[in-house]
């Protein structure tokens, strides 16, 4: 995202986003959603024009199944920023984009173009290039636009995207519309200047530093104007918001309503991550971030109102690879300088790979839609259950509990199985020196699974097994290498059979 917050040190990351359930299941663009699991958002996706659906359908950041197959990368070319957010300390990467303490390499436009083409030639699955933090890409428009200009010409098969805090957006719209821009992400945390003044201490505007409510008012006006102008130009707009408990948590429903009414195709809520050691205002002042439950509740309440994408993960500004899997080390600048790239040849190869992937995705979508048509054999009033799944992609359960960097959260109910969100886990054992802290990290991981009643992974060690059980989360390693939805449903049916899902019990436990 852009950060509006792109460049911050991060204080929090892009953790979760909202989902587009309809897309996930729609076997074809026109047929709408035939799956029973789509829930309430079906009709919303149906209202999106086909052109938008098509764009979103294969986007690794937006389409739940596409992100198992396609990849994106971000480059940082524009580190300056024209505002200050209270969750950003500006010494490191943008909060919206990064992991704390990880500084992205800032590239020149020339280096960024080389790196993008090197990655695209070596990882044909890479289809999306984003310009992201640190910094606001539109506060450094020349560098951002030069990168876009060259890539649109030299690598026309790569989709481009950009994230911004919105302050300089209106004057950038014209230029953006000239490039192959797939979508623009605006970080909008509020539509009320009084709320904004608690999030943004100052902006740089018309050659002055402006503070307080006045600054927030200008920023909000620019964001909204930019949003409207992009929509008028037919450019896809995604909105990111950082959820800050006690400051904008309740207000975000209004944000969701406003941006949706103006035509944003997606609203993504991320949790604030604030720690004193980040040196940010929120960190130092002890502002807490939302719990996984609070975040999910907000995402759920906004979902009724907005297309929510939940499968996107936080990624670093210079991350390379499949979503969630960072291969940045293979493409450092010195390695790239030595690579000879024949992009024409690479483009041919990429095309074939993309076609094969598309065929596989289509057949899986169809298969899924057919299966989903069969309702599970449980009583209709059986309560829904959340389960966590450890996977590295391809739609199967294939990660050891202790190696999972994140969990996919699914909900099983009499309506079927539905993807809810990603949750970051702190890997409790990476086999490195940090293992001394095993215990507490394992506890953090388990805490991140709050609300789940089972965790499905390829294997679970003895120690975590016990701790999971104590936390009321049933570890399950019986479905290794199986399809996620089928395994989740199988476990749900077992639970139902064992009488764990009776409504009385729900009441008792509620």
């Amino acid at each position, binding site marked *: 995202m852009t950060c509006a917050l792109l460049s911050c040190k991060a204080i929090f990351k892009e953790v979760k986003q909202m989902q587009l359930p309809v897309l996930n299941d729609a076997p074809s663009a026109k047929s709408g959603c035939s799956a029973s699991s789509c829930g309430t958002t079906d009709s919303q996706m149906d209202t999106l024009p086909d052109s938008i659906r098509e764009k979103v359908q294969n986007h690794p950041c937006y389409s739940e199944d596409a992100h198992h197959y396609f990849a994106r990368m971000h480059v940082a070319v524009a580190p300056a*920023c024209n505002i200050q957010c209270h969750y950003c300390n500006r010494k490191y990467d943008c909060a919206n984009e990064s992991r704390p303490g990880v500084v992205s390499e800032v590239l020149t436009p020339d280096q960024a173009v080389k790196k993008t083409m090197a990655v695209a030639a070596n990882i044909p699955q890479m289809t999306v290039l984003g310009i992201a933090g640190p910094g606001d890409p539109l506060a450094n428009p020349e560098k951002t636009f030069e990168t876009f200009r060259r890539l649109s010409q030299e690598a026309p098969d790569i989709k481009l995207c950009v994230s911004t805090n919105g302050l300089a957006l209106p004057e950038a719209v014209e230029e953006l519309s000239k490039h192959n821009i797939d979508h623009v992400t605006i970080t909008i945390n509020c539509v009320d200047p009084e709320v904004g003044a608690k999030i943004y201490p100052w902006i740089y505007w018309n050659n002055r530093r402006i503070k307080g409510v006045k600054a927030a008012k200008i920023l909000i006006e620019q964001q909204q104007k930019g949003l409207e102008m992009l929509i008028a130009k037919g450019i896809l707009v995604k909105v990111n918001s950082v959820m800050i408990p006690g400051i904008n948590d309740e207000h975000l429903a209004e944000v969701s309503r406003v941006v949706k009414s103006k035509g944003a195709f997606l609203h993504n809520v991320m949790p604030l991550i604030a720690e*004193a050691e980040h040196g940010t205002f929120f960190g130092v002042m002890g502002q807490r971030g939302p719990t996984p439950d609070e975040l999910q509740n907000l995402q759920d309440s906004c979902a009724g109102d907005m297309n929510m994408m939940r499968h996107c993960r936080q990624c670093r500004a210079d991350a390379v690879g499949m979503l969630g899997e960072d291969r940045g080390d293979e493409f450092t600048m010195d390695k790239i300088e030595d690579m000879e790239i024949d992009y024409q040849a690479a483009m041919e190869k990429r095309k074939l790979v993309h076609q094969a992937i598309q065929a596989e995705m289509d057949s899986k979508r169809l298969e899924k839609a057919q299966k989903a048509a069969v309702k599970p054999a449980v009583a209709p009033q059986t309560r829904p259950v959340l389960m966590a799944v450890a996977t590295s992609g391809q739609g199967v359960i294939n990660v050891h509990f202790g190696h999972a960097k994140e969990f996919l959260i699914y909900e099983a109910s009499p309506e079927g199985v539905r993807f809810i969100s990603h949750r970051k886990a702190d890997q409790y054992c990476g086999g490195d020196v940090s293992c001394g802290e095993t215990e507490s990290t394992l506890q953090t991981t388990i805490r991140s699974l709050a609300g789940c009643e089972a965790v499905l992974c390829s294997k679970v060690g003895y120690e975590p097994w016990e701790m999971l059980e104590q936390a009321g989360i049933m570890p399950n390693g019986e479905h290794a290498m199986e399809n996620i939805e089928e395994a989740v449903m199988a476990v749900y049916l077992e639970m139902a059979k064992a009488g764990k899902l009776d409504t009385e019990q729900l009441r008792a436990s509620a």
Partner: protein
Amino acid sequence: MAVKIIELCTNCHACLPVCPSHAIYETKPHFMVDPKKCTECEGDFADFQCASICPIEGAILNALGEAINPPGSLTGIPLEKMAEAMAELQAH
């Protein structure tokens, strides 16, 4: 008369494009102001442009050697709070 960038600078680039006199340059270990070129924005703007966009308190000094953006002026973090947080961190 000229302003000065000191070691608190985080190399964020923000000041570079906004200087009307092209007095700022990127170098190691941090950005610098060429005192011969800096006009203190005189005749161009009412405020020092570099110091109006710089996010780091204390990174830019005026000709008297005073921080143009003193501690607490940008982040809004009360000084005692910052001191507390720092003390806490040191304790670890």
